[in-house]
């Protein structure tokens, strides 16, 4: 159901590794792999931008990109 497309994101910070998240071919989120400027969060995937029904008020991080789908199911 979810597919991920690697992209390079320009955040003007070292956080540039990112992925577009598609659900049934439609873009629903952008995940960014946090760099080591974020201390303990370095290496985790941050919900950078959210579309459609993806809640985006609170900051969310995931250990892996794939956890995004599980989290969204729980939030729905």
């Amino acid at each position, binding site marked *: 159901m979810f597919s991920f497309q690697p992209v390079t994101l320009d955040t*003007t910070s070292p956080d540039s590794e990112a992925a577009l998240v598609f659900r049934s071919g439609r873009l629903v989120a952008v995940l960014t792999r946090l760099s080591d*400027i974020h*201390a303990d969060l370095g290496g985790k995937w941050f919900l950078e931008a959210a579309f459609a029904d993806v809640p985006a008020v609170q900051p969310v991080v995931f250990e892996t990109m794939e956890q995004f789908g599980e989290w969204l199911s729980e939030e729905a």
Partner: protein
Amino acid sequence: MLETYTDFGFYCFIDRLVDEENMTANDNDAFTRVIHKLERLAPLEQADRDAIRALPFRIKTAPPNHYLVKEGAAATDCCVLLTGYVCRHKTTSSGDRQIVSFHMPGDILDLQHLLLSRADHNLETITEATFALVPAEDLRRVAQQRPLLAEALWRDTLIDASIFREWVLNVGRRDAKSRIAHMLCEFAARREKAGLGPPERFNLPMTQEQIADATGLTSVHVNRMLFELAADGVIVRDKREVEITDWSRMCRVADFNAAYLHEAA
């Protein structure tokens, strides 16, 4: 969920020690800082100062992240902050928090309770804080008897309102880097005016999560912006210790003009 991931804890420690020593020497000194503040707002006479010092009060200490007032509560006292830092915030029905102001020693945290009987927002400590609780009816009575004191309190609420207006502009219309820089400039300027230290170097008492809640950003974005401000060479940061190395450039980045602070800067 993202946790606060910075680990500082030495905010304005020296300020706190000094204040507590003064309070032990003479409890009336509890109002020294607030009297200094009110003197900037109106030409108080000795009788005004005496009237403040004669107010009944109770001294309380609260740990960090402790609610002093909760939205909806009946308000019978006004809090004068003596040491530490406090924020006002409101929350959505789903629990998301927006911090609407930061407060420092000498601030009267809920002056609106002179005339409004219920709290319309929350007051929560950021650090350990000591405060004096003054019965609202006593402060109201003194304000009615002393016109210059009433003028100072009125002006204080007007300046509060001006700061709120600036925060709406900051959260609504400035980009992320400017928002963070603006918050730092305001904190530095108010802190200096309150006699808490020079604006160029200070320890930030708030966490990145609290800064995020005050600026409508995530703590990840706050960390990025602090990183960028340091990379731009306008600040030097070591955990919570911040040095503004180029004040005029920082003000340009922040779009900061202290005029809205009136006598608070």
